[in-house]
């Protein structure tokens, strides 16, 4: 940072993001807002069953309707890459639509003479009715991996629906209504298969398996795990069988020793619900083909990092795709690289010789296919010393993992506990149970929100029981500096235990400073005296909680051009999902060359415009990753401006400084100078590294392609983030809240909420406040109202809309909320910035659980969401929980 002089001119200031006026005037175009000549529409046929095999499909009546253009089945999709070590998928046949009479059988010899993996299998009989399961394929090869059959990866359409609402086929017609009418005329015969909604039922001896391959995910595939009758008898008595068999095991230290040292032990059964992401914009997409390229208007969180995924789903090369996504109506993890279903209009359009195809996804469809946060059923035991120090944690968390893969939120939850409480002895055991429910993926702080809601009320309970202040107990246990954390997998049997097995460490942790700042702002010492006090029918609960999550990655690229017209054009491969990181991090380049923001433009959201390689817009990585990349890019640009100035005006490059789009001798801004426009002209004359003819070899191929498309346009700044980093970057949040619980009705009001973030240097206050509060309120929604519900008998989804699993409204939160940041820079980032999107949510959910416990008693509320009747009934029963976490799943 030798060349820049904090305090910054742009960083840390409020400004208007370059997309805002378009948004507020209705000009901003999201995927569904695009139209094209001749556009036709697809509708999806969704599975009415939670698990079944498609035996036959008769679409003849539908396809005979005038205005109906075609049907898409699973077999129309390219095979996803097989899992490591897995034999290749059988070619052709699986899931193919019934071929017309006389046509060559699906599953004809594979093109290119690839060794047939299923030689001898009755290929011709493999109609959609008799899908060759991967198990069959594996059984026919000698190279089957020892761990079991390979799992079929999820593709956009399927012939073995694994959850109600999974898309089976798509029909294209002149209108949506016509496509929907055509779907009504399709006859499908299903063979019902066993299904699982409640993970515990699947662990019961004789209980159903969510997949034909097994019931639990065990790397690399699946296995069948049933608990003993004795284990299940404990569950039936409402007691978690903490000695039962697990799949995932991680640990550190010696928990037996840790519990021996403890003066207080708290043990808790616990359940959290599954929630849908529900971004307000569904995963709509529109596609057409032109000149051999696919043009796709989609809704995605990331742009640069959606290209490879989408090209793979469609089965084309990356340079055959133009992705346009300038505005995305939220994602929260559900659209990290877009959505697999974007391939549906793309492939349908291909079938129709490139005709534009629109696929609108309704709210109900979005709730089915739009991904979820996995629910937990579990048990935790924590040991504390008298002073509040956590001595040991033992956690057993069963995750409702959906049908396709281990989600792993539960292991993340455990790792975060090891970070947040710096516990020397900890064990995590987990099972990711296959369930026939909408598939999970990362939802804003996957495992992080659950960690706060699970552990933080136990910390508060310990503080109450030990007579320790609730802020003090968190400071006592919390991380600071480059705190070490993380759990380790078990060693192979008989292996010697190495002296220092490597664990992770953070690049910075200022949670204690956040707690101090928050306590002062919240007037903690005074307000905590009110906690638990009753006035009339209302009890006040006052609480504090902390949250943490990853907050940055490294190694991405930046790209910018100073044009001869004097403008600085900053290219960003970042998606515009609403976090403002797209433009907040662009400002770093402007800052480095002291350029007025008004003379800068940001280019984003269209891969034909030359976008550099980016981080994914997930994991709260972007602000950290792209302040680094754009710092490197800004320094590259600065150096080149200085070099050109020295060439033309004499002296050495380091003699030159710059401001207001001019470069001049240091200390002499009024003397001889060159405008950036002139510098750009000279760069074009000089060529080489200056105008993009030569770029660093280390750049990602996407950045190289983008630079090549911009060669000769002006002075190019381009760089990869090669800056060092020692550790993993995490951000932290201290949350404070006050609730008021009506003990007669159970209705509770959140009176006040304060979030204080350790996010390093503040980039954009308006945006940071929005993230701290927005995350906090989403955490509140998890605790208060959101939930997917199923009929356990039929596996049918009952909550399919916003009203059924309602996110918070303006009236469910405090009328006025405050926020702050500790503003201590992260030493591993040249700007000092860290991410905030996810660290904000866990503290928000946790602090409401803690405040409710402060009002109604510890251990009364052991599952979420907390509805008023749960409180009222529990209090009427002397504090006995209304729902047993283990015996009442729904």
């Amino acid at each position, binding site marked *: 940072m030798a060349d820049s002089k904090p305090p910054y001119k742009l960083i840390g200031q*409020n*400004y*208007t*993001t370059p*997309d*805002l*006026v378009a*948004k*507020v*005037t*209705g*000009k*901003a175009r*999201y995927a*569904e*807002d695009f139209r094209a000549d001749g556009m036709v529409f697809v509708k999806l046929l969704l599975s009415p069953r939670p698990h079944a095999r498609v035996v036959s499909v008769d679409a003849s009546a539908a396809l005979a309707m*005038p*205005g109906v253009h075609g049907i898409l089945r699973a077999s129309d999709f390219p095979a996803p890459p097989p899992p490591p070590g897995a034999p290749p998928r059988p070619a052709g046949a699986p899931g193919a639509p019934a071929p017309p009479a006389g046509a060559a059988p699906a599953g004809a010899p594979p093109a290119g003479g690839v060794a047939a993996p299923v030689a001898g299998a009755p290929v011709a009989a493999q109609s959609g009715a008799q899908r060759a399961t991967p198990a069959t394929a594996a059984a026919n090869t000698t190279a089957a991996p020892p761990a079991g059959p390979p799992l079929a990866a999820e593709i956009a359409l399927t012939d073995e629906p694994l959850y109600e609402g999974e898309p089976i086929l798509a029909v294209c017609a*002149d*209108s*949506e*209504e*016509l496509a*929907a009418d055509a779907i009504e005329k399709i006859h499908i015969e299903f063979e019902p298969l066993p299904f699982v909604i409640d993970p515990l039922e699947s662990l019961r001896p004789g209980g159903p398996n969510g997949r034909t391959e097994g019931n639990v995910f065990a790397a690399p595939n699946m296995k069948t795990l049933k608990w003993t009758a004795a284990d299940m008898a404990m569950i039936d008595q409402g007691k978690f069988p903490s000695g039962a068999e697990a799949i995932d095991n991680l640990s550190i230290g010696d928990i037996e020793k840790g519990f021996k040292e403890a003066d207080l032990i708290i043990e808790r059964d616990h359940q959290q619900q599954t929630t849908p992401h*529900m*971004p*307000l*914009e569904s995963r709509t997409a529109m596609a057409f083909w032109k000149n051999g390229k696919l043009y796709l208007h989609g809704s995605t969180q990331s742009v640069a990092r959606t290209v490879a995924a989408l090209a793979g789903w469609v089965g084309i090369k990356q340079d055959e795709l133009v992705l346009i996504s300038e505005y*995305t*109506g*939220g994602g*929260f993890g559900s659209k990290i690289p877009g959505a697999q279903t974007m391939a549906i209009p793309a492939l349908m359009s291909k079938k129709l010789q490139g005709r534009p195809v629109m696929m609108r996804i*309704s*709210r*109900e469809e979005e709730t089915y296919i739009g991904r979820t946060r996995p629910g937990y059923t579990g048990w935790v035991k924590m040991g504390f010393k008298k002073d509040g120090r956590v001595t040991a944690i033992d956690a057993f968390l069963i995750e409702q993992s959906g049908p396709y893969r281990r989600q792993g939120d539960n292991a993340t939850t455990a790792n975060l506990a090891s970070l947040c409480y710096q516990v020397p002895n900890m064990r995590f055991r987990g099972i990711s149970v296959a369930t026939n429910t909408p598939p999970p993926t990362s939802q804003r702080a996957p495992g992080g929100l659950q960690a706060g809601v699970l552990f933080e009320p136990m910390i508060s309970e310990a503080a109450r029981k030990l007579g320790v202040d609730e802020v003090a107990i968190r400071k006592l246990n919390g991380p600071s500096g480059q705190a070490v954390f993380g759990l380790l997998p078990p060693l192979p049997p008989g292996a010697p235990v190495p002296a220092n097995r490597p664990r992770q460490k953070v690049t910075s942790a200022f949670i204690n400073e956040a707690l101090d700042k928050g306590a002062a702002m919240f007037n903690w010492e005074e307000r905590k005296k009110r906690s638990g006090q009753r006035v009339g029918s209302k009890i006040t609960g006052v609480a504090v909680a902390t949250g943490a999550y990853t907050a940055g990655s490294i190694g991405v690229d930046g790209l910018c051009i100073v044009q001869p017209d004097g403008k600085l054009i900053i290219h960003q491969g970042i998606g515009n*999902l*609403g*976090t*403002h990181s797209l433009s907040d991090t662009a400002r770093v380049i402007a800052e480095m060359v002291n350029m007025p923001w008004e003379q800068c433009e940001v280019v984003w959201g269209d891969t034909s415009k030359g976008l550099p390689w980016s981080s994914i817009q997930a994991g709260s990585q972007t602000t950290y990753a792209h302040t680094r990349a754009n710092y490197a890019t800004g320094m590259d640009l600065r150096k080149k401006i200085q070099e050109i100035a020295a060439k033309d005006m004499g002296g050495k490059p380091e003699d030159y400084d710059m401001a207001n789009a001019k470069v001049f001798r240091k200390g002499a801004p009024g003397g001889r100078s060159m405008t950036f426009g002139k510098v750009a002209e000279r760069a074009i004359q000089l060529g080489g590294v200056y105008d993009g003819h030569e770029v660093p070899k280390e750049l990602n191929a996407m950045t190289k392609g983008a630079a090549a498309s911009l060669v000769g346009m002006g002075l190019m700044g381009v760089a990869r983030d090669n800056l060092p980093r020692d550790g993993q970057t995490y951000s932290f949040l201290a949350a404070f809240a006050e609730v008021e619980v009506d003990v007669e009705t159970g209705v509770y009001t959140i009176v006040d909420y304060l979030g204080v973030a350790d996010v390093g240097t503040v980039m954009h206050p*308006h*945006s940071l*406040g*929005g993230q701290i*509060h*927005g*995350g*906090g*309120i989403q955490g509140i*929604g998890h605790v208060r109202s959101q939930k997917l519900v199923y009929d356990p008998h039929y596996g049918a989804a009952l909550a399919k*809309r*916003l*009203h059924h699993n309602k*996110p*918070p*409204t*303006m*009236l469910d*939160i405090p*009328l*006025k909320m405050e926020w702050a940041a500790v503003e201590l820079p992260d030493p591993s980032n040249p700007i000092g910035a860290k991410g905030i999107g996810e660290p904000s949510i866990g503290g928000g959910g946790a602090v409401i659980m803690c405040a409710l416990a402060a009002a109604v008693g510890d251990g009364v509320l052991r599952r979420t969401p907390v509805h008023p009747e749960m409180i009222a009934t529990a209090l009427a029963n002397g504090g006995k929980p209304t729902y047993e976490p283990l015996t009442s799943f729904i």
Partner: protein
Amino acid sequence: MSQDGMADAPGLQPGVSRRNFIKSVIAAGATVGASAYLFRTTIMGQNDSNLPGSVERLITLDINGQQRRVDVLKNETLASTLRYKLGLTGTKIGCDRAECGACTVLVDDVPHYSCSVLTHTVRGKKIVSIEGLAKPDGTLHPVQQAVVAGQGFQCAFCMPGFVMATAGFLKTNPNPSREQLAHGISGNLCRCADYNKILDCMMHAAELSRGA
């Protein structure tokens, strides 16, 4: 309390209690099935205007101060007409029906969920969508100005609905308390949950509106 015994939210426009609103929606025949979310392009043989109960299809609508001639099916919602017939895609559809408010437009100055209003019921009424809020010379409406000044909203998919709901609310209560305003626009969901900043912006919008 309003006459029908339901509590008016503080500051709610007189006469539009929730129950009255629901009644009016039902009276307007807006409780259509899921097919309302679908729309039909013009196809030979698909024209149902000869069916019993059909209505005149080519109608004139007063939208954003312009008279627009448009071919409207009898089961077509205002959101569909705006977005898919008139190209006014600033109005967003966030849910299947009347849950999120992203499609809010003004009908004779009153905010309506346009996904739950049949287009045929608004003939002769003045409709304003997000595209019609700024002046023809581009000067932003005070609500829009306040959003820009305060960097309101995140993904902004809900923004057009919120802006229209606020613009409508401020016409009936130009000087609301924060609580009144929150009640007045609480029928709009923001999934990014940027509510605190939205309310900050909208309180500023009320100030700007009064000054304008």
